[in-house]
């Protein structure tokens, strides 16, 4: 049984494209580490052997992996193949997986669920974005990766898999609304791929799974719970006025 509150991140970086996903997954890993024990396989550490060793040793309930992929294959650093449909995906039994990789939602993700993965987020399209600057400063790229990280962040906060999916879709929609209002000459190009990635994002498997314990709700300002004795006292006073 995978361990609750343990997360495994695998975020290779071997070219311009993976530099973006690596950067944004770093933000998600830092966020997750506030509430969970995080094993972060960064850049060249994101190899097949390290991933499988960590699954074995740490038994994480949540995995967030990035890498090149297609309908049947997921790869990690330097495009080293980690999983193919019906081979390797059985290692995900009982886990929730966020697979930021092209087209793995077509066959690999459903296959992993059929082998016992609790839930898998994947894309039935090639995950695509546009950018001009470095990952940390690029204005175009932020919306894509923040919307994906919304899944991870929500799961860390104890949301269910479906709630995390809904929060992510709301993020995609907010970014789409933001860019439709933009007068940037390439805004339509940003939008084209935001819509493409949003519509291609799928959740397979359980919609009610959690990877961490939800925090007890904190009361908003003005909603501080009134202690029961006061309530009882007011009720008695009110009743006495009626009698």
């Amino acid at each position, binding site marked *: 049984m995978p361990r609750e509150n343990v997360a495994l991140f695998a975020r290779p970086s071997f*070219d*311009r*494209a*993976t530099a*973006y*996903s690596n950067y944004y997954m770093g933000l998600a890993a830092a966020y997750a580490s506030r509430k969970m024990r995080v094993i972060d396989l960064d850049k060249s550490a994101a190899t097949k052997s390290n991933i499988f060793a960590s699954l074995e040793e740490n038994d994480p309930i949540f995995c967030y992996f*990035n*890498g*090149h*992929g297609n309908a049947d294959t997921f*790869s990690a650093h330097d*495009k080293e193949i980690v999983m193919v449909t019906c081979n390797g995906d059985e290692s995900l039994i009982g886990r929730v997986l966020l697979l*930021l*990789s*092209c087209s793995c939602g077509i066959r690999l993700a459903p296959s992993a669920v059929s082998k016992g993965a609790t839930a898998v987020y994947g894309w039935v*399209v*090639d*995950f*695509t*974005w*546009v*950018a*001009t600057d470095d990952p940390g400063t690029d204005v*175009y790229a932020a919306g894509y990766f923040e919307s994906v990280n919304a899944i991870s962040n929500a799961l860390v906060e104890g949301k269910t898999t479906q709630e995390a999916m809904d929060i992510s879709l709301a993020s995609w929609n907010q970014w*789409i609304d933001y*860019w*439709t*209002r*933009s*007068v*940037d*000459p*390439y*805004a*339509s*190009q*940003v*939008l*084209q*791929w935001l*819509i*493409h990635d949003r*519509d291609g994002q799928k959740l397979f498997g359980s919609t009610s799974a959690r990877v961490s314990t939800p925090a007890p709700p904190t009361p908003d300002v003005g909603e501080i719970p009134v202690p029961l004795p006061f309530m009882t006292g007011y009720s008695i006073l009110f009743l006495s006025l009626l009698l």
Partner: protein
Amino acid sequence: MAFKIPKLTSFISANPALADVPIGYVKGIAITPRQALAMLQRGEAVKEVVAVLSAAGMDPIQQDWKLVEDYYIKLLQLPSSPPTIYVIGEEMTLSEALSHIQQRDLIGQQLLRSYQGLTREMARRMR
């Protein structure tokens, strides 16, 4: 027809990013929502323009191939430096994208599908 002008005006003002994306053809020329509005205001080819607006996002595939090609040609004519299109593990310039569209290869087909998603979103916002 008169109701189309205020509707289109408010669409352009609420969605400036989508105002210059080609959505259909009038007399063989690709037109954008901004051009459609100008034509309606001039009373030019009104019937055809209204037909284009009504069919936006539902065009036959052959027309979509032409539209996506025109769209990328327009993007390449913009004066500022263009963004790069990234797919995990790969990258592509806008002119490479145009070339895939012109060849109608596998990547060109993905570009077409994603452009169709954009025009469907435009149609949804125009209605």
